């Protein structure tokens, strides 16, 4: 599964990092970092991360 974050919209709230800590992380500067691909086994938590993003900046692509 491929993950994209619209970094122009992202406000580094970090709700995704709470929902899916294996994929999203807030670094020491308070900025979002993420893995652009993730294993299928993480689908539920990545979908949840996309759902809870306050600015709806996360998109998932299959494959």
């Amino acid at each position, binding site marked *: 599964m491929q993950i994209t974050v619209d970094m122009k919209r992202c*406000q*580094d*709230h*970090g*709700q995704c990092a*709470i*929902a899916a*800590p294996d994929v999203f992380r*807030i670094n*020491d500067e*308070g900025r979002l970092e993420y893995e652009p691909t993730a294993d299928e086994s993480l689908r539920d938590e990545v979908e*949840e991360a996309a*759902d*809870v993003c*306050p*600015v*709806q900046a996360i998109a998932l692509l299959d494959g």
Partner: protein
Amino acid sequence: MSTATIDSAPFLDVADPSFSITSDVVKQAREQSWYARTPYGLAILRYDEVSRLLKHPKLRQGSLSWPAHNGVTEGPFADWFASWILNKEGEEHHRLRRLMNPAFSKKLISGLVPRFQALASELIDGFADRGRCEFVSEFAEPYAARVIAIMLGLPEEEWPIIARESATIGLALGVTIKQDLPKIEAALQRLYDYADGLIEDRRENPREDFVTALVTAHRDKDSLSFQELRDGLVLLIFGGFDTTRNQLGLAMRTFVDHPDQWRLLAARPELGGAAVEEVMRVNPTVRWVTREALETFEYQGLTIEGGTTVHLFSESAGTDPRVFGEPSFDLTAERMPHFGFGGGAHHCLGHFVARSDMSEALPLLAERMPGLRLDGEGTWLPDSGNTGPITLPLAFDRD
């Protein structure tokens, strides 16, 4: 000695009840410096610094010590306050947030839109023929309380109980908390009774609704305990009511000053979402978001001592000319995000609900209340902390 003498930063007496966050004093301070000293600590005034500090890892949410600072250290209220997800940090916070977030998802909320529309129309029907209304008691208050009743699956006619008990618990955020404590704890108990009934019912009779989503929420083998559920439900009632009521009143007050935008919203109801964002940018009910420094750290050359209270001024940031240019109110403008829902780990849990219910209400109000104008000055909460109208008499042209 005042800390204001330590450096050249402006001083704002935010503890003075007559202090206004929208006053020229604050605007001048914002031009002078990105921060000001206050009796509590610091106020952050500009967009970029508010945005960064709102999510800064060295700052925690800042209201945890409020009851203790006012002599309330034990009992049901102190326990409940300490249980707030807002007052938790780190993994303890993240666990609760993970379990609670899905119930507040956009998908689940969108199913309630027709109910929100029907409710708004019913309330407007109650005063449309008169060409005037007292907006808070005739719309904002019943709307905010009945939205909560709809979410929880409570009978909507019981909304005055939600409104009354929430208002009583709200006394806890004022400086008279200690003397009001018996009343506050009685109100808290009545809301707990509601919550307990709801939890028991949904455990036995799960259905497609918000409370069932919370009761059945799980992550791996973890789920919310009975105590966490009742604490969370009472917080939701309390946190969702005042804020929505106040924000709707503030929205109307802003539109009174911008009749062209009111007409635009009536003509283009799809701008309801944009209207909510634009109102919350220039006139947010949460005038400041509170943080507390976990340890001493440097930020842009300023040393922020551990324990310092930092108030992030949302309206000041939302109208910062560095980002938004000359003052304007325009539903069609592309804007940077506002901070009316706070931000970071503690970003408002119920923001999809608030955004959805207000974006349905405002276009219906605009359609049915053309020629909107004040019908008296109304009465107002202090213009700091959480603000809004206590009463807001409005007049409009009858159909």
